[in-house]
């Protein structure tokens, strides 16, 4: 503890009232002793910015050896040693410090500052409080007493929690892990570092840069160039490759040019590295259940704050959390791929050709991409001169529904091949579903047998809990065919009724699932009458135009998210011998159909 002249605690009156000097000196020493014990840094500053008193804690905080050094420093000469920012990262000047504001006649609130020591890059969070010492003679402010409370640990813990909860939110927001990791990189800058890069080990076993971020786009372009030219290889001795191999985080502080030269492959590499200008680097492994799947690299370069060991813990938490997300996203992508393959097995590879008829089908699965099952359709020729059209809907989604859907489709095919008529085919499917173990699997289906004759195409329709197919005449008349039959798989006994009809040249038969009529919220749905109306309005259009209009109307009502799968299967009997089946008809030919 040192005592300088002009010490405010002693006051200037010591010369005036000599009798009280010994008493005052004792008081002063006691007060100094008390202040010296304080953990908080305390300074007393006069109107000219001169420090007239400081304790050792203040000297330590402000980076000088003794309080005396602070007291002999020129006013304003200490502050430039620090970068002083407010909570939002805005730089603060001397005039906005509470002590200065006291002298400006204000009544300043305690100020939270982020203080970075320029010499070392150390970051501290301080609460600065100032209170006035009044001159008893003039009642003016003689001194400001500044108390600096170091809350770095508390503040950092709070910011870390906030950062991690934000990171968790970002990581949970998407199943696209590329996009997610780019968001993580953006999140880390500038909160953690000046640069953030994320590398993963891809399926080919190569290191792949999936995200890199820097606040300055020009610098970003440079990083990408660096990666293109000098992408790290797995057998590199240090850096990303080493962390990938070992699963151990690395931190490099106080990086000197020598270290960069040693790391650089050649002069161009060195030049790029120099432009990045790393001062400190942290590389942490992203670890999933299968091991290290990638790394997150943090670099501090131009900003005064340097990465240090205290940042490492947060970086490791971020990487762990990211690792879990990446792995989950990868599994999801793989499952989507499997779901896609499965889904194709539920639908015919391609539709066969029917001479003298055109065929069109549409299928839009609802819900998440890895949910399969639900609607199915089929078209096949069990024997010469006969065609079977099938459309159906298995209740539910997911692997179980997919299994039931496959069962339904194949059972109906097998039944048709053993010469069963449509109603019997559906009864066979019902029996097959009832044999399924564990619970009710509800299925609705519509089967139509088509037999072309020289005059017309004869139809035999059987329904099991399914919407009746629609016959659309070219002039726009729409008729529902078939009689309601019991849905399959849950109720006994079932009643399936076969009915007959015919389809003439130019007429269309449309099979559909309830996803078409029921898409969208109640009240906005197309409904059966809406669908009939749409069919009537579009009857003159080419067949794919009709289906396109229906699909569009459905998606519009679903407002982007379907409640249920949408399946459409349509057959149109060609109007003349000139039209060949299967071949896409030109619109000119199609127009003739309508008139």
């Amino acid at each position, binding site marked *: 503890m040192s005592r300088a002249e002009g010490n405010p605690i002693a006051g200037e009156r010591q010369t005036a009232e000599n009798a009280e000097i010994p008493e005052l000196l004792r008081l002063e020493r006691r007060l100094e002793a008390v202040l010296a014990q304080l953990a908080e840094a305390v300074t007393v500053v006069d109107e000219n910015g001169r420090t007239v008193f400081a304790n050792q804690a203040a000297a330590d905080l402000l980076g000088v050896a003794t309080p005396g050094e602070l007291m002999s420093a020129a006013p304003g000469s200490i502050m430039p040693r620090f970068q002083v920012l407010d909570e939002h990262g805005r730089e603060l000047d001397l005039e906005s410090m509470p002590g200065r504001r006291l002298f400006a006649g204000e009544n300043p609130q305690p100020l939270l500052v982020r203080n970075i020591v320029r010499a070392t890059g150390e970051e501290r969070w301080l609460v600065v409080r100032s209170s006035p010492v009044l001159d008893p003679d003039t009642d003016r402010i003689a001194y400001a007493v500044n108390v600096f409370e170091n809350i770095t640990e508390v503040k950092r813990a709070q910011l870390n929690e906030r950062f991690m909860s934000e990171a968790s939110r970002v990581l949970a927001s998407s199943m696209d892990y590329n996009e997610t990791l780019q968001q993580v990189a953006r999140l880390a800058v500038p909160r953690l570092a000046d640069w953030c890069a994320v590398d993963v080990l891809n399926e080919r076993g190569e290191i792949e840069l999936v995200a890199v971020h820097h606040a300055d786009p020009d610098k970003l372009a440079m990083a990408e160039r660096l990666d293109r030219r000098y992408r790290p290889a797995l057998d590199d001795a240090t850096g990303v490759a080493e962390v990938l191999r070992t699963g151990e985080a690395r931190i490099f502080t106080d990086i000197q040019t020598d270290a960069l030269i040693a790391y650089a492959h050649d002069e161009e590499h060195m030049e790029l590295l120099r432009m990045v200008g790393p001062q400190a680097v942290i590389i942490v492994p992203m670890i999933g259940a299968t091991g290290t799947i990638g790394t997150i690299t943090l670099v501090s370069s131009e900003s005064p704050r340097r990465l240090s060991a205290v940042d490492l813990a947060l970086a490791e938490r971020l990487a762990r959390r990211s690792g879990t997300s990446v792995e989950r996203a990868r599994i999801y992508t793989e499952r989507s791929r499997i779901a896609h393959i499965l889904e194709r097995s539920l639908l015919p590879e391609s539709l066969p050709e029917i001479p003298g008829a055109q065929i069109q089908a549409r299928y839009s699965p609802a819900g998440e991409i890895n949910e399969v099952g639900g609607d199915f359709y089929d078209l096949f020729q069990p024997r010469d001169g006969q065609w079977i059209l099938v459309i159906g809907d298995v*209740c539910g989604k997911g692997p179980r529904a997919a299994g039931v859907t496959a069962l339904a489709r194949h059972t109906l095919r097998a039944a048709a091949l053993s010469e069963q008529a449509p109603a019997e085919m559906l009864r066979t499917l019902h029996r097959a579903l009832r044999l399924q173990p564990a619970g009710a699997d*509800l299925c609705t289906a519509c089967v139509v047998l088509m037999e072309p004759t020289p005059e017309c195409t004869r139809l035999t329709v059987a329904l099991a*809990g399914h919407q009746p197919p629609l016959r659309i005449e070219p002039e726009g008349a729409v008729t529902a065919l078939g009689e309601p039959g*019991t849905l399959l798989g849950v109720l006994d006994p079932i009643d399936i009724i076969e009915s007959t009809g015919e389809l003439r040249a130019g007429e269309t038969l449309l099979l559909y699932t309830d996803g078409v009529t*029921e898409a969208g919220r*109640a009240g906005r749905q197309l409904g059966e009458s809406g669908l009939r109306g749409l069919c009537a309005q579009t009857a003159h259009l080419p067949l794919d135009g009709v289906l396109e209009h229906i699909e569009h109307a459905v998606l519009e009502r679903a407002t982007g998210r379907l409640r249920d799968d949408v399946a459409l299967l349509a057959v149109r009997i060609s109007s003349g011998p000139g039209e060949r089946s299967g071949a896409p008809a030109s619109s000119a030919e199609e127009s003739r159909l309508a008139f």
Partner: protein
Amino acid sequence: MQVEHLQVEVRSEPDRVVLHLLGELDLASAPLLQGTLENAEADAPPLTVLDLDDLEFIDSTGLRIILAAHERAQERGQMLALTRGSQQVQRLMSITRAGEHLRIIDNADAQLV
């Protein structure tokens, strides 16, 4: 469970428990009904009534839950009944012919003879 488009109100009467469904019953909201039904069944009421008059929409998922509840009630010697419901509900019941297998009543408090 939080399902925004379906609400199930449960009312216990001396002779029955009434589940009043409001809104839309589909794949997303079906678990809410399923859970509510299971809770109601735990008390083994002789009669469970599903009041569908304020149900704006039902799909096959919803129907499956009702049919499964119907089957459970039969196995336990209890009864499940439902009100006729909106046009859309009635249409589904007639297309699937499920209505023929279920006990339909005029209103939630109607006496079963």
